[in-house]
């Protein structure tokens, strides 16, 4: 045997990552889960690798998963939405503010607010060609300012029971209710991106906006659609979050901003657009959620947590960039 065929057949991680990123991500997810289990046992906290904890991980991951869903769509077009966290906060606030008027009305108002914020972002980016980063960061500042003014006013705040159940309850002991929101949306996005016209156009615009325009795609419509959906999904995430926390405050969704971008990047969607998908993002959201549990078990202070979190995100993004660059 010569050395040449051996080299070709060696199953390198690089190759595997390039060929099937989802498999590698699943491996990483399982590995971190087992690692957390070992750490938890070592600290005398018992097993972590239980059905209960797996169920909890999915319950936690739904909020991040929804925020990262909008982020995925936006990043596929080559943009970024830094207003997802404050939009989610706005959604959470709306639900608790209008909770006394029944949950359908409260949820509807929250979703409409999310849609409006998304549309404003979209108008800025799509029609006025404002840099996505600035537009969404600016809108985020405006939203937070308005929320602060609102929060100072006296009002009865009540999170409807339905929303609390949706955000924190489980059916059949192990199935979180919020999966009934997340799973259909996830399926819709994954299938929609692959098979629908707008899905293909999102990739086209992200890959090469000029070519897409010349091929007859109305770029501005695609961008407007993507940012509007992102606002809507962020508000939905905010509803689940306030259901879980049972109270809204101004910082409720802020810790999700970096993870929402990180989940997308870890999931293999290129920040320059046109490459990736939502399936990877879901795994990214799950990985980050377990990571968060691990940091909680390690009893890390907010400061240490933030540092470790940033570094891990950097490391994962770097590994991914290296793996895909090798192709």
């Amino acid at each position: 045997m010569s050395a040449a065929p051996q080299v070709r057949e060696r199953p390198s991680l690089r190759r595997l990552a390039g060929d099937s990123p989802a498999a590698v991500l699943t491996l990483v997810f399982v590995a971190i889960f087992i690692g957390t289990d070992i750490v938890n046992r070592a600290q005398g906290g018992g097993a972590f690798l239980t059905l209960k904890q797996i169920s909890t991980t999915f319950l936690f991951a739904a909020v991040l998963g929804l925020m990262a869903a909008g982020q995925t769509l936006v990043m596929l077009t080559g943009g970024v939405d830094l207003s997802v966290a404050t939009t989610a906060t706005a959604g959470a606030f709306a639900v608790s503010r209008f909770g006394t008027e029944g949950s359908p009305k409260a949820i509807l108002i929250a979703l409409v607010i999310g849609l409006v914020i998304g549309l404003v972002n979209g108008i800025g980016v799509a029609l006025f060609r404002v840099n996505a980063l600035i537009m969404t960061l600016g809108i985020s500042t405006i939203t937070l300012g308005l929320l602060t003014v609102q929060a100072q006013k006296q009002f009865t705040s009540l999170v409807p029971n339905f929303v609390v159940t949706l955000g924190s309850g489980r059916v059949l002991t192990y199935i979180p209710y919020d999966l009934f929101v997340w799973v259909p949306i996830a399926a819709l996005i994954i299938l929609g991106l692959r098979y629908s016209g707008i899905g293909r156009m999102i990739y086209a615009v992200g890959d090469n906006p000029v070519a897409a325009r010349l091929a007859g795609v109305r770029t501005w419509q695609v961008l407007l659609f993507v940012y509007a959906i992102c606002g809507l999904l962020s508000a939905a995430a905010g509803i689940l979050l306030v259901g879980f926390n049972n109270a809204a405050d101004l910082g409720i969704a802020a810790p999700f901003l970096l993870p929402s971008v990180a989940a997308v990047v870890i999931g293999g969607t290129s920040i320059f657009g046109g490459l990736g998908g939502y399936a990877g993002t879901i795994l990214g959201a799950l990985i980050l959620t377990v990571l968060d549990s691990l940091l909680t078990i390690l009893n890390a202070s907010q400061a240490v947590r933030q540092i470790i979190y940033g570094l891990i995100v950097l490391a994962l993004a770097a590994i991914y960039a290296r793996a895909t660059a090798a192709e």
Partner: protein
Amino acid sequence: MTVTTAVAVPQRGGLARFVRRHGWTIGIYVLLLVLTLFWRSQTTVKWGPFDVQSLVIDALPLCFAACAQSIVIISGGIDLSVGSMMSLANVVSAKYMLHMSFDEAILFSLAVVAGAAVVGAITGLTIVVTRVADIIVTLAMLFVLGGLALAVLQVPGGGAPVRFQSLVSVDTVLTQWFPAALLILFGSFALLWLTVRRTRPGLALYAIGSNRGAAYLAGVNVKRSRILAYAYSGAFAALGGLAFTAASGLGDPNAGGIYTLNSVAAAVLGGVSLLGGVGGLIGPIAAAFVLTLVKTLMILRGVDQNYAQVIQGALIVLVVMIGGLAIRQKGKGS
């Protein structure tokens, strides 16, 4: 373009060319002047040197943040970690300066600026080596540096020598209309930027921002220049944090929070193109004053502080929108 104008331009001399090239920067200074005159007419008590002083104190951290952000944007990148870097410099200085003498505090400040430049360079190095997008790396650094700031000081506290504080708050140079803070601002601008602006490394920053591929082919060391840009950003952000310490006499781990967005806004308003390669620091410094003055004016007229923030945010977005449209029109015209 007709032949006549092409011939006429060089004959008309330097002024027309200067106005054409620096139209935006001149515009922002005119805006600053108009706003200042309006501000003067609005104040009920006698408007004087004290008002100028307080405006400079308010604007100083943002001026430095705008410089930090502008250099990175000129080089074709973006630095979302500017705010956290300011917080970190702020809490580190406030924590350790508390019992220092004035001289020690000055030396310590220089060390903080140098350290921040090193941290900035590490950010740049990370971007260059890992090839992860600058947005992701600096967003991660925003959290890492913010976490470090929180680890240094969990709640606002610390302090600075009185004389160090008066350097920014009460000292004046020659006349009472010229606050020492302005001298510090333009001094560090001249020392850090003007000395480099026209040299090889400085021009390389513009080159890589304008066209990275062409710069590489022209023999520019792209990687080294990108790292330099982030080192500059770190140094200027640290100056911003120190200015905050001197102005408030306090260290606050969340002090830098708003400066990431506002620094980008000041850069854009100051004529720095987000596409890279265009602009300078003179414009963004004026833009930082304009942004601060707008907020001062609103609070003066009794607008709620939070509404003032909302309006300021809306103005930033509007300015960027109009700026974007202007660039598009210009692009269509030529």
